């Protein structure tokens, strides 16, 4: 391990980080962007959760009028749209940002400024699509936006305009991030970190990025058709002109089904990180976990029409999509069993993170089984568009995605704040959440099988649905309480939580080898990885004795980023890491700055922010088309375009980071 003299950095006077709000707007650091994603997504999760509570309050008893039909329809549309596009996907994106570079031993993502751009497009798009609910102008066509209901003939108002424009904006964010992370994972892995050594979260994220870049173009095309229909008078979906409404449904679900895996695979990845750590055992069947994740992603593109068994596609199409849907249950089942056998024979330590991970196994299994139930089209004809389906996908998305994301938050919070989340509050959160979600969603199986349709703002008395709905509502309130405890825990622990140290859980992967919170450059030296469990190699070599290793020295590679290094995995357990006594935070301890180490850090810049702002303003110009005058439309269009072009020009003609002058 040679110590090299710090290379001089040209233009060392250029500030690479600002403070305050401007610092957040101009940041290009993947960890800060990840935190922005995390807190924005949690905010939208509360927003979508509030919408859920309104839905459940309305449905607590028959013939209730807590909100009007119009408001209810906006709220159920926005609950789905918010939770999918503004809460769960960005929560996953927060983890992509926070973890992927750390897990593969990189200093940042491949395109730090594009990364900031993705975030700002997301948050501005989220505002565009969320704010109109205060003006009774929120989307009201369902998150699936079936035509012809969403065409001008049946939805002439601004509501659906907001939805199509908002989703287009959010799609740009997801696509930019997708390409960014694919490039990062392919190109920026540390020496020795070959694909089959990547941590499972990075692997699942890798699969998800491909799903994103393949699925989002389809919804983009579908939405562009709808934009053209709504604003420019084309007839892609105009049934009066002979359009086939199934065009939208096919396009939407070719996107929509992979979207389910986009939502759930990152959670699978997080759980695959949490379980081995707390079982003190490596992940059972790592290669099979990788292959089953890829297989789920690939098969996910061949099952879309199982959302359409009631549309009358004919027996051959129904049979085909039924069989592919059943097929996808196989790799999913393999994952469940591999997780259980990761725990089997282990020394399972119960922490809140681990409880949430185990909770995912238990709850997702229920969603998987009900999923197989409606993979059979005749049975699905009794279940589709009833509350049975609502129960099913909430077990998948709440019991699957959110449980996994909660596990991830409890597990990784100390890495990014230096402090542990409070475990006692965490257990309150976990148990109330588990009880509440089951009380909410399990009775929905029965209300559905007893004939209750979905998406109804009210129902009549004496239908046999009252008890189930009351239970669901009580459960939803419990989930609400649990969520508030969780938020309180985050706010409190971020300031007063126990100190965590580098590696509070005894984990196997690279991100735990560095300080908590990590310094801006992540790794002082780019580590050389010799096995699938680099940190266990250093700390507990006996744990990885029978995993294939590369001999030390085989990887005398030139690491281009930051000059020539020949590093091994560094791990300096902090002197008094015992959380009860509290080790000093890395930030208080005073790690070496990037400049001292000669590591180039991308400049902070507001150009991605302004590019995003210009883009969003430009796209929003269409929303003013309902006004009598077109002046605002042209103003926003050309104003936004000018900001976008100017920002992009400035962006593309300015360097990312200081030049390193090699001695």
């Amino acid at each position: 391990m040679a110590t090299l003299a710090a290379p001089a950095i040209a233009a060392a006077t250029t500030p690479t980080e600002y403070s305050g709000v401007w610092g957040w707007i101009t940041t290009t650091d993947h960890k800060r962007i990840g935190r922005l994603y995390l807190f924005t997504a949690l905010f939208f999760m509360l927003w979508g959760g509030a919408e859920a509570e309104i839905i459940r309050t309305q449905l607590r008893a028959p013939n209730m009028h807590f909100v009007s039909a119009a408001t209810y329809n906006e709220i159920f549309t926005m609950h789905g749209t918010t939770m999918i596009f503004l809460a769960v996907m960005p929560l996953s994106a927060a983890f992509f940002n926070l973890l992927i570079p750390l897990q593969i031993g990189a200093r940042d993502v491949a395109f730090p400024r594009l990364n900031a751009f993705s975030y700002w497009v997301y948050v501005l798009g989220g505002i565009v699509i969320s704010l109109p609910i205060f003006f009774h102008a929120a989307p009201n066509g369902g998150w699936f936006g079936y035509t012809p209901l969403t065409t001008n003939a049946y939805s002439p108002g601004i509501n659906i305009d907001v939805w199509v424009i908002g989703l287009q904006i959010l799609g740009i964010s997801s696509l930019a991030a997708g390409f960014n992370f694919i490039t990062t994972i392919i190109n920026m892995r540390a020496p020795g970190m070959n694909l089959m050594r990547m941590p499972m979260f990075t692997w699942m994220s890798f699969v998800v990025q491909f799903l994103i870049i393949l699925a989002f173009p389809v919804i983009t095309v579908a939405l562009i058709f709808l934009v053209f229909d709504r604003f420019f008078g084309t007839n892609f979906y105009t049934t009066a002109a002979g359009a086939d409404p199934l065009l939208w449904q096919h396009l939407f679900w070719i996107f929509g089904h992979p979207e389910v895996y986009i939502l759930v695979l990152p959670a699978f990845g997080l759980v695959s990180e949490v379980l081995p750590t707390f079982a003190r055992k490596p992940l059972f069947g790592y290669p099979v976990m990788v292959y089953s994740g890829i297989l789920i992603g690939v098969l996910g593109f061949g099952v879309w029409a199982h959302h359409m068994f009631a549309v009358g596609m004919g027996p051959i199409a129904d049979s085909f999509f039924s069989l592919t849907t059943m097929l996808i249950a196989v790799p999913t089942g393999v994952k469940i069993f591999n997780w259980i056998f990761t725990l089997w024979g282990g020394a399972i330590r119960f922490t809140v993170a681990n409880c949430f991970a185990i909770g995912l196994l238990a709850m997702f299994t229920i969603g998987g089984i009900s999923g197989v139930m409606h993979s059979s089209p005749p049975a699905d004809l009794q279940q589709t568009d009833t509350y049975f389906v609502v129960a099913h996908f909430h077990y998948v998305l709440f019991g699957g995605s959110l449980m996994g994301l909660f596990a991830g938050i409890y597990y990784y919070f100390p890495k990014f704040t230096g402090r542990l989340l409070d475990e006692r509050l965490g257990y309150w959160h976990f148990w109330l959440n588990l009880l509440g979600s089951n009380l909410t969603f399990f009775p929905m199986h029965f209300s559905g099988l007893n004939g209750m349709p979905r998406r109804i703002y009210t129902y009549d008395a004496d239908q046999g649905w009252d008890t189930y709905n009351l239970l669901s509502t009580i459960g939803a309130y419990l989930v609400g309480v649990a969520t508030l405890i969780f938020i309180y825990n985050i706010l409190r622990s971020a300031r007063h939580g126990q100190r965590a140290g580098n590696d509070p859980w005894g984990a196997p992967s690279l991100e735990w080898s560095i300080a908590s919170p990590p310094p801006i450059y992540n790794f002082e030296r780019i580590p050389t990885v010799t096995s699938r469990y680099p940190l266990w190699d250093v700390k507990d070599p006996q744990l990885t004795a029978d995993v294939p290793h590369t001999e030390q020295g085989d990887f005398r590679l030139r690491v281009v980023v930051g000059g020539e290094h020949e590093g091994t995995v560094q791990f300096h357990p902090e002197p008094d890491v015992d959380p009860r006594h509290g080790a000093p935070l890395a930030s208080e301890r005073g790690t070496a700055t990037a400049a001292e180490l000669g590591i180039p850090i991308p400049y902070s810049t507001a150009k991605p922010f302004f590019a995003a702002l210009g883009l969003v303003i430009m796209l929003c110009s269409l929303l003013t088309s309902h006004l009598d005058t077109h002046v605002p439309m042209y103003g926003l269009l050309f104003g936004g375009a000018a900001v976008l072009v100017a920002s992009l020009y400035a962006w593309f003609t300015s360097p990312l980071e200081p030049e390193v002058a090699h001695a």
Partner: protein
Amino acid sequence: MPHPSRARRRVTLAALVAVCVLAACQNGPNTTFEPHSEFGRAIDGLWKLLLHVGTVVFIFVETLLVYTIIRFRRREGQPEPKHVHGNTRLEILWTVTPAIVLACIAVPTVRTIFRTQARATPDALQVEVYGHQWWWEFRYPQYGVVTANEVYLPIGRKVNFALRTQDVLHSFWIPQMGGKRDLIANHTNYLWFTPDSSLGVLDWNGTCNEYCGLSHANMKFRVFTVLPADFERWAHHQALATTVGAVPPTTPVAAPATATPAGAPAAPARVGIRSAPDPLVRTVAQVSGGAPAVAPASTVVDSGYVFPADRMRSNVVAHTPIPDGLAFSPLVTGDAERGMQTYNKSACIGCHAIKGNPYSAGIVGPNLTHLASRHTIAAGLYPNDTDHLRLWIKNARAMKPGVIMPVLGVNEIDPLTHARVTAAVGGLTDQQIADIVAYLQLLR
């Protein structure tokens, strides 16, 4: 590190089990668990297989999981666990086993798909279903019947629904008769089944299951399974025109003694609506002129068959409360003769058809020919009685969000446009509305 207390876990489990048991005990009135047609039973057979397999898998996986986390929890002084990285045999086992289980589901699934989606036999009762925002139109082409929101089915006879929509997508579902099928614009979908001949005279709920806009929740219909002879009486009566006083009385024509042979060429659904006077015009009531005190008793030659209201089950009766802020002058009584004249001069005729009233030939709204023989109005939302009909005409949009039917009561506020209705734009007084209702209630 704090441990989740086992007691707490037990309480949670017990609560969950209690919920499940409680829930499973109740088979609601709209249950899918009690099929009453061959289509429903084919689905139910498959569903039971799925439910049993699913339950076994559920118990197996959850038991394994719970056992694992209890058995292998960390104990003090425990040595490092053995580091197993995988086991190819085991992994093949839990790849192949689910595949075999799924194959056992797949075979009967595909068989049932092809069986239930075969073409219906040609002798089936044909019912054309048209979805509208937010009501159902039912046409019986073999009988020349056009009706709305209530569908009569003879038990033991196959019925073939041809499903079409006039606007957005809807989905047609009668839970006890089998699965649902969407109504897709520019497509015709079919759904057939045979209500069990052992079923008897019963009433069922039907719903729209595809989100279709503002009043999706209020798009319901009623299904009456009746004896075949009663069905024939109902259908032949419904095919007749109804008229009141003003049209010169012609020889009353009794319901044709011979039933239209099943499978006869379908009569065009709208025959007789636009061509007036209808050859089958029949006097339903002789209105005693100028005696508005009591709605005149109608002299009905043959009232046909109507499902008896007193046999309707509670879940099929509409319980929707009247929205706040709607009121009707309590002392007004209607005059049917005057009501018809008002009706013929008001906006009503632009949208509604009454076979036998040559002025009323609109096709936008529900056909009102035998309105008074129906049990509900507004697509199953309200009971069909004087109070509800009056309020409905007075302010339909307050009664049911978003309906196309305009607000007609003078001085009412339109919830959609927030404009006040005046007489100048065709607003009707309570007296006029009561008259119209008196007229409509004669359309039996």
